[in-house]
């Protein structure tokens, strides 16, 4: 059986990280193709439920990234997001959800190389953690189909 390839979903803001990931491209820096980017205007827009939904959709890892503090295109969206993440991440951890699978980052529009590093390190880390079956199997549908797929 081939090595497990994690599915990573990234929620990024349009102005910093999305642009940063564009720069990664323009700079032709290679990184793992496991990541799928969902573009949002601002990290402030990222509803915490989206992260939950990413896992229920089968993500093995999630990246959330936006502008560095003080750099938000909307001035304070990322500050609000940060507060939300602090509470949310702690809550998830408290519930025993594997927070190692959620990577929060600040990647600016100038940090093309950093974006590649972030993706690669998350892919490597999550690959080592293995598939997030514990979460996926919570819903009867995913559990069933997964058994079918395996068989």
């Amino acid at each position, binding site marked *: 059986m081939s090595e497990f390839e994690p599915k990573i979903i990234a929620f990024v803001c349009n102005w910093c990280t999305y642009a940063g990931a564009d720069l990664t491209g323009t700079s032709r820096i290679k990184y793992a193709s496991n990541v799928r980017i969902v573009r949002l205007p601002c990290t402030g827009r990222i509803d*915490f*439920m989206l992260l*939950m*939904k990413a896992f*229920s959709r089968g993500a093995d890892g999630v990246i959330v990234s936006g502008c560095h*503090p*003080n750099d938000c295109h909307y001035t*304070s969206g990322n*500050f*609000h997001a*940060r*507060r*939300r*993440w*602090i*509470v*949310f*991440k*702690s*809550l*998830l*951890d*408290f*519930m*025993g*959800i*594997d*927070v190692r699978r959620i*990577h*929060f*980052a*600040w990647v600016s529009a100038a940090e093309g190389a950093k974006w590649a590093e*972030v993706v690669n390190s998350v892919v490597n880390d999550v690959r080592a953690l293995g598939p997030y079956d*514990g*979460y996926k*199997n*919570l*819903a*009867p549908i*995913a559990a069933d189909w997964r058994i079918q797929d395996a068989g």
Partner: protein
Amino acid sequence: MLAKMRQKAKDLLSSGVVSTVIGYGEGSGNRVRALFIRKPDDADKLILDERCVQNLAVYLTKREVRALGRPAVVARVPVMRTIQQLMFEKQVAEGEVAVIGISPDSQVLDFPDLKSMAEYVSAIPFELSADEKAAVEKLEKMTAGERWNFWLDVLSGCSKCYACRQSCPLCYCERCTVECNQPQWVSVPSHGLGNLEWHIMRAMHLAGRCVNCGDCFRACPLEIPLNLLTQKIITDIADKFGGADEYALNAFKPDDKEDFIR
């Protein structure tokens, strides 16, 4: 003190200041229940003892209760905190509700208005009890895997009867997120995923708002300790943001500390 409360209820009703007094009365078994006293003479049915803990503020946002006219509500500290929060959230306005305050040592408190009630209750430190703290810490000390199994186990019984939500005075939304189906944010059935999503969402939506009255836990037919989640958030908000904000999630400090965003 009981007499004073009854007298106060009587006065409020007979003077026409309020049309209903929401308080506690004897229920079935050894339970107490919410009473809606409409006539001064009925005020003697009101009781006050250690069983009287239901957060009666839950009724302040109910349409049918509102339709009865201006209510007075018997309010211990958590209830007063709730009313304060409801005011902050524009669900209760000054003048709409009278409060028969009950101090921690069971004295009847007189408040000329909600503002003075809010001032009184703000002066009482908002923190978890030692037992509550210990319960949160006990869970914190477990490994993530142990916590996962703990919650999977306790939530497995949840049938999504929403008693936790309905008993919560701050869950007054006419259409809860779980009822938003475009998109379907929370999986409806009470399977593992649906339950987890529901409880995470509930806790997050109460983050920075919960007054730790404990009614969600008391309402749960299965006695699921789901207030541990909100209690955890209460400690987090106090520890990480100082707890001074009126609502921690629409405020921020440019130098809010975290150690995981890289």
